[in-house]
């Protein structure tokens, strides 16, 4: 379960950085980039709290 959550978080991070790179390369419009970054942010915020502080709590 924890691995799955980490993967989801990773997808969230990827959606925060790859759209800007695609925009820089001229492969994506600014509005689409903003949308994908917003989705990436939500994915990260929902998934990361479930695993990121777990080692220190155990």
């Amino acid at each position: 379960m924890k691995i799955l959550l980490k993967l989801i978080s990773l997808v969230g991070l990827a959606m925060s950085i790859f759209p800007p790179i695609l925009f820089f390369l001229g492969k994506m419009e600014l509005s689409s980039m903003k949308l994908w970054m917003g989705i990436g942010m939500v994915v990260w915020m929902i998934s990361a709290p479930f695993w990121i502080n777990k080692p220190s709590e155990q």
Partner: protein
Amino acid sequence: MSNRFFKKIVADTNEYERTPIPENELKGNKSFLGMYAGEHTAGTEFVIGPLFVAHGVGALDLVLGLLIGNFLAVLSWGFITAPIATAKRLTLYYQLERIAGKNVVRWYNLVNALMFCFLAGSMIAVSATAVGIPFDLEMPTLNDWLPRTPGWIITVLLMGAVITLVAIQGYSQVSKFANIMSPWMILVFFAAAIVGLAQLGVNSFESMVTIAQEVIWNGVPLPGMSRFSIWHIIFFAWFCNMAMHIGMSDLTILRYAKSWKSGFSVFAGVYLGHFVAWIASGILYAVFLQANADSQEFAPGQIAYQTLGIAGAVCVIIAGWTTANPTIYRAGLALQGIFPKVPTWKITAIVGGITSLAACFPALVMKLLDFVALYGLLLMPMGAVIFADFYFSKKMGFKAEGALSSGSNFSLPALLSWVLTLGFCLGLNFFYGVEIFFLGLPGWFVAVAIFVMLSKINYPQTKSLAA
């Protein structure tokens, strides 16, 4: 809200205000990496980067200055603060009380708490420039000192209340919050730089160098702003956290470290926050200036939202939050030194209230560079006193922790080191025109020298009869 509510959320919180940290509470490098990465990738970075642009620094001066200045800051944390923190494992305030006495520390703590409140307030104000976007809030401009609208006041007060509730829960909650947010936030800063460069027309390394030198950091200050050289950048990067490293505020944080080497874990924070983030936010501001040549508006939230959308605005909010939290926590500990019998959570709640009021004034944001330099300078001499007491008491033949060893509540050497050093710095500024950014270095040596000389007179080491 009732006391019962606050007591419920702070249950089982022990911050070890007047005792060394026990072995089972020590934390590894990971905890400090997260804490520092979150703390130094902050709301202030959205202000400092643009202000460098406004001050007309050159591109090469900026990059070299940041590399050198941040390196000196990491060395200061690693070699000056962390060894003392892990040897003593006491808060700055209790350590200072043992050296300077309660009566001196009361004044120090008051100044310290107020400075932290104002700093945290500036971060809440920065966050508010993003929170206000959906409400079409009128944003402050570069020349604003007072709040423009009631809407601004309501926004910062609400934000202050929420941030204070998190800070009340202590170091662990702050650390967890920073751990969760910092990886995403750091990526958003990288994204800001990439998108900003694209919007400025960069499509190759050569064009990036040209645009950096001719458009972003073109060496021409905005009207009414002084011009910054490489020396300004080096000293600002080194001393923007002067209160924390050579001023010893981070004794309170690093006392939890298993090893003194954890002091170097700050490198991740300063190079991501005070290098990448300052450059990224400078690029964002250059994009804003290109699109709005005559605009005096200075609203980091609005600037980030225009370029990155909702993710940019949320990043500004979170960035301000993750720095305001530990700053309010530190301010709470400072006041704890004055009112040791009042619970930490109650003190933190009061500090949060003062911080929220301070955040109403945009002047804290517009004059941030000067304010950051001033607050470090005001607190630095007491850090020098702790350093001198720790390293020179035996070698120079005076009693360590003078107030404690003499059973006094007042140490003249500590008080005079503080006051005379600030007088010396004021003199350098007033009579020789030395700018505030450059006063910390000579001031630190003067503070150490005064404390050692006066301690040798006031607390001479007596030879034991057994020897």
